């Protein structure tokens, strides 16, 4: 213990100077603190003394006033005054009664005035008693101290008034009698009584004042201290009970003074005391000054200590300098080693930084790959054999397969059947050869829909370059395709009407020309111009013009077939391209083109409704045909344009062909139509009957063939007027007339033994069959003519079965039910609906003349003929070959089955009379040769 104390003291020994300085500082702090505290307390005591003195003064003044108030109250409550009012209430008059009370009051007042003293002076100058009306009933004392009576009427509470001018203190108290105010007692004292309470100091200057609330100096009486008088209002506003320096007042005499305002309780008076600092605190040192003196001493001592410490430090620095030199050398060696170590660690750190960056990059790439894999495009990952290992959400959503359903499958699962196997093999070869492939691909979803996608296949290789996986990305190109379509639409279609524009038209015309050159068939161009369009534009504006163009485009589109093209060529010009009229015959082509042209003209006969306007507009149509002509597209358009101008020149609302011959033909055709219509009405058309025989040459009947004996042009070929009848709708009355004629003939035949068993085959067009009342019409004709329906055979062409076959079958069934037979004409040349063949209630197939014609020279025709024969046999149908013109043909056909025959070899078509003659001459017992010879004789 002792040894530790010794060690501690030794450790403090070198610091004795510091310890002494600290002790000195502590003692100085203590002394200064005590001195400062003492000064503060002295001042506080002086302040408290001043405050106490001021409050004492105010209390004395207050007590004086309170005494006056109490004395006045006592007088007011005196028995004499009470008696006065009692007797007054009894009705006594002053003269006979109240005088005694007033005398008693007066005596009491006089006694009070005479007896009440304050510091040796009379406390009252005057006492007065006022009745309720303010009339002074008793007034005792100095007349000079009278006040304007009453001071307060109906005074409710004691009231003190300071009359500073007359220097009076007037106290008024109410006289209460039985709780009612009956009058007032007023005491008047001299204000000077209070002068004894306000002292002056020995310096000759009054330092204590009595102030009114308005700052009026009431005391002392001598007011030499004018500064207080002039500053009274400001001094009266000083905060009460607090010593305030008067540094802000304008009166210089008061500067440096301290002021204390003590309010007199219960009044508006204040006692103001002034004192200079010396007077208040005496000539003591300022605490601040003491503090600075102490601080100066401390600073001096600290400087001394500092200098001593600096001297000691200098000595120690000298020693340390030598020591530091030695250490510096050691440090230099250490620094060298440390530098080497730092460089080594920096190298390691740089290496680590590179690895970290590589790792960050790798992670970033992985994140990118993950993000890319989960992009909006469908993606799959397969192994090298194409087995799906993974698919992203977009691909799952695209195909509708779940990820579980996809994983483990190959792309065959969602491969579209639109592409053949060769395509996929080629794609796979490319992938394996180049490591990638991209192209348009169609995906088949789980629901069977096909989606257009752009597939990109990329091979994933490992570090050795070996392919480990394939990534397939399916980009949505539907928008791209839509954009392409939009571009194409903008490039090739007219924005106003939506029709193909001039560019697309020219392209299609070029294609059609090329195609027709190959097929040797005809096409046609119709150049259409709206009549008087400019007038509309100028009168009603372009808006109406545009509306008309749109309406015209719609009407034009309704006039053509689906394969045809209606184009807006420019302005009010339209071009209709009839790419393929399906005929190699110019006349037929011209008729078809003319028919469409007429349809167009007819479409323009109705007025156009343009907003509220009904606008009639006709068109002029120019037509040119094209087939094998080696003219270019521009030439064709120019021809059609010229023809259109020809129509305009001819009076508008018309149609003209570029070729004059065509125009002539059309004109002639129109005349033919007129004649046909007229002759049909007059039933001038006839039937000629071509014999039909069985395999043994027996006459079975005839095919009725229409003949038109024109009044001026002689017999007109059916190939000439039948197309006219078909195109004009006259085929229906024509067919009805022919059917009626045939039935009449049957009826006549039924009466002749030679013809009673014969049948008549009559051709019925598809148009007739589509008539709703066709069955009823046939029945009516049979009933009207009395023909045996079992002897009637209707020949239908394959074109009849093109549409609404069920309706045809139903009608055939109804007619079949009444005994009418059916033969399918031209079998093998057109629509071979073998699937319907079985459903049709047919009795006979007819081998077309085109097959029979070359049956000996064309193996295909021969095969067809054989197939038809075999087919009819299998279906249980009879077969008839038409167009048999030679014996070789007959022999070939007879060699393949028991057929019926029709043709020149057996007889040409002939009038009914000739046929009856033939039938009569035809005998079942006759030999075939004889028959044949007879027929030929008749025909001749």
């Amino acid at each position: 213990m002792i040894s530790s104390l010794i060690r501690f003291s030794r450790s403090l020994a070198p610091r004795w100077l510091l310890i002494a300085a600290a002790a000195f500082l502590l003692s100085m702090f203590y002394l200064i603190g005590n001195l400062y505290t003492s000064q503060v307390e002295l001042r506080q005591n002086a302040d408290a003394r001043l405050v106490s003195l001021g409050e004492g003064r105010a209390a004395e003044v207050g007590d004086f006033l309170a005494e006056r108030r109490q004395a006045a109250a006592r007088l007011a409550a005196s028995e004499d005054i009470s008696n006065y009012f009692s007797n007054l209430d009894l009705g006594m008059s002053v003269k006979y009664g109240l005088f005694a009370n007033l005398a008693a009051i007066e005596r009491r007042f006089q006694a009070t005035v005479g007896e009440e003293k304050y510091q040796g002076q009379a406390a009252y100058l005057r006492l007065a008693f006022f009745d309720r009306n303010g009339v002074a009933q008793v007034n005792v004392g100095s007349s000079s101290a009278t006040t304007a009576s009453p001071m307060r009427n109906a005074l409710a509470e004691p009231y003190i008034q300071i009359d500073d001018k007359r220097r009076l203190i007037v106290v008024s108290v109410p006289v209460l009698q039985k709780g009612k105010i009956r009058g007032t007692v007023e005491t008047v004292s001299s204000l000077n009584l209070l002068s004894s309470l306000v002292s002056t100091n020995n310096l000759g200057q009054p330092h204590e004042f009595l102030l009114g609330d308005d700052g009026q100096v009431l005391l002392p009486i001598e007011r030499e201290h004018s500064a207080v008088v002039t500053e009274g209002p400001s001094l009266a506003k000083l905060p009460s009970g607090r010593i305030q320096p008067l540094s802000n007042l304008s009166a210089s005499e008061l500067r440096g003074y301290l002021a204390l305002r003590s309010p007199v309780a219960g009044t508006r008076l204040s006692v103001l005391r002034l004192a200079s600092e010396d007077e208040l605190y005496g000539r003591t040192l300022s605490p601040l000054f003491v503090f600075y003196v102490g601080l100066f001493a401390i600073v001096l001592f600290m400087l001394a200590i500092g200098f001593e410490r600096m001297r000691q430090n200098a000595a120690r620095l000298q020693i340390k300098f030598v020591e530091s030199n030695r250490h510096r050398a050691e440090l230099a060696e250490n620094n060298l080693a440390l530098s080497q170590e730092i460089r080594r660690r920096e190298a390691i750190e740089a290496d680590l930084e590179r690895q970290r960056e590589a790792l960050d990059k790798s992670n970033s790439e992985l994140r990118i790959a993950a993000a890319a894999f989960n992009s909006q495009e469908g993606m799959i990952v397969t192994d090298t054999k194409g087995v799906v290992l993974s698919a992203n959400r977009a691909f799952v959503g695209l195909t509708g397969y779940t990820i579980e359903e996809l994983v483990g499958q190959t792309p065959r699962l969602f491969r579209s059947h639109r592409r053949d196997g060769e395509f996929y093999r080629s794609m796979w070869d490319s992938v394996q050869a180049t490591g990638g492939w991209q192209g348009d691909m169609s995906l088949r979803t789980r629901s069977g829909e096909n989606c257009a996608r752009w597939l990109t296949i990329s091979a994933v290789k490992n570090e050795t370059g070996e392919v480990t996986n394939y990534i397939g990305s399916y980009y949505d190109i539907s928008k791209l395709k839509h954009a392409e379509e939009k571009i194409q639409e903008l490039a090739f279609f007219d924005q106003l009407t939506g029709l193909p524009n001039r560019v697309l038209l020219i392209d299609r015309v070029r294609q059609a020309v090329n195609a027709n050159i190959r097929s040797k068939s005809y096409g046609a161009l119709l150049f259409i111009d709206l009549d008087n369009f400019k007038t509309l534009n100028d009168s009603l504006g372009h808006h109406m013009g545009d509306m008309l163009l749109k309406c015209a485009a719609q009407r034009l589109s309704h006039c053509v077939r689906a394969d045809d093209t209606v184009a807006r060529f420019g302005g009010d010009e339209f071009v209709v391209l009839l790419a393929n009229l399906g005929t190699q015959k110019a006349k037929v082509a011209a008729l078809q083109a003319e028919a469409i042209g007429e349809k167009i003209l007819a479409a323009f006969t109705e007025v156009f409704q343009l907003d509220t306007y009904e606008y009639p507009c006709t068109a002029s149509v120019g037509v040119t045909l094209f087939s094998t002509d080696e003219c270019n597209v521009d030439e064709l358009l120019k021809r059609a344009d010229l023809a259109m101008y020809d129509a305009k020149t001819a009076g508008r609302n018309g149609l003209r062909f570029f070729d004059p011959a065509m125009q002539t033909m059309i004109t002639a055709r129109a005349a033919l139509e007129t004649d046909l219509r007229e002759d049909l009405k007059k039933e001038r058309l006839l039937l000629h009957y071509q014999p039909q025989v069985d395999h043994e040459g027996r006459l079975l009947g005839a095919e009725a063939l229409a003949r038109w004996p024109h009044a001026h042009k002689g017999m007109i070929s059916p190939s000439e007027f039948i197309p006219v009848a078909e195109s004009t709708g006259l085929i229906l009355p024509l067919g009805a007339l022919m059917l009626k004629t045939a039935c009449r003939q049957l009826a006549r035949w039924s009466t002749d033994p030679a013809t009673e068993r014969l049948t008549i085959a009559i051709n019925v067009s598809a148009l007739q069959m589509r008539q709703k009342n066709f069955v009823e019409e046939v029945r009516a004709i049979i009933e009207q003519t009395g023909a045996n329906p079992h002897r009637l055979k209707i020949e239908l062409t394959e074109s009849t079965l093109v549409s609404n076959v069920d309706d045809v079958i139903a009608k055939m069934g109804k007619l079949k039910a009444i005994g009418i037979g059916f033969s399918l004409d031209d079998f093998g040349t057109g629509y071979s609906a073998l699937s319907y063949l079985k459903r049709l209630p047919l009795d006979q197939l007819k081998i077309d003349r085109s097959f029979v014609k070359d049956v000996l020279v064309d193996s295909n025709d021969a095969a067809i003929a054989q197939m038809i024969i075999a087919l009819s046999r299998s279906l249980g149908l009879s077969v008839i070959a038409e167009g048999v013109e030679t014996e070789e043909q007959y022999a070939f056909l007879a060699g393949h089955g028991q057929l019926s025959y029709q043709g020149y070899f057996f007889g040409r078509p002939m009038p009914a009379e000739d046929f009856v003659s033939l039938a009569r001459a035809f005998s079942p017992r006759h030999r075939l040769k004889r028959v044949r010879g007879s027929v030929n004789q008749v025909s001749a």
Partner: protein
Amino acid sequence: MSLKRFVRGSLSGAMVFLFATSGWAADLAEIKQRGEIRHIGIRYANFVTGAGDGLDVELMQGFAKRIGVSYKLVYSDFYSVIRDLLGKDVVRKNGEVTLAGDYPIKGDVISSGFTVLPWREAILLYSEPTLPSQVLLVAPAESDLQPIQDGADLAADIVNTRKAIGSKSVLVMERTCLDPSNYGLVNVGIDLKAYNKSANLNEMVPAMLNKEAELTLLDVPDAILDLRKWAGKIKILGPISEQQTLATAFPKDAPALRNEFNAYLSEIKASGFYDRLVDKYYPGIRRFFPEYFAKTN
């Protein structure tokens, strides 16, 4: 004993005594010689309080001092006071006053708020007035009678007051200043109630309040005291008499004494001593008789 017999007996006795003791009447010289003045006083209001002081007591004390003799107070009452001064009893008959009988003379001067009345002047010497007085009609506070309104004419006030009496009974004290015969109240239909339980006028108001009569007569000096003593319990209805004079009475054979007293009285009035005495014992009486005190001052 009836009042008549009493008066008759007393009067005959007084006449004898008058002549027998007339030598006892003393004037100033005798009094000075004797060295003592005997003051006959009646306990009445604040004139002679009975406690050894009073207005007349102090007056007479001052007078004794002036003439250089000792002072002695001899108490008497209103019935005996003249007899005690003159040694003869007073007989009033048919408007005449005679002295009868011989009685011991007990004093030299009567000073006790003694009203100057004509019949008294016939047998006594009066000094200058020592105090004015008047007789008032007093009623209890609860009486339905109302005080008269102040009038400028005293005679009219008296008439109004007398009218107010009506059939009310009035307490009176004969042979005193409250004797109704002095004021024409006898035999005029007024119900007079003579108070004879005592000769002390101070008991009039208590007797009235004790329902012995509905009204009472009261002189001003008593009224001043009773208005304070019975404040709120009595009320003054109005005057019954003209203004009266109180004065000190001397025997007819003591003119020197009376003159000396008058000199004394003038002196103290001039010195203010008299006023102080008045204010001391009858504060307010100045207000009632302002004219009198104006003359005095």
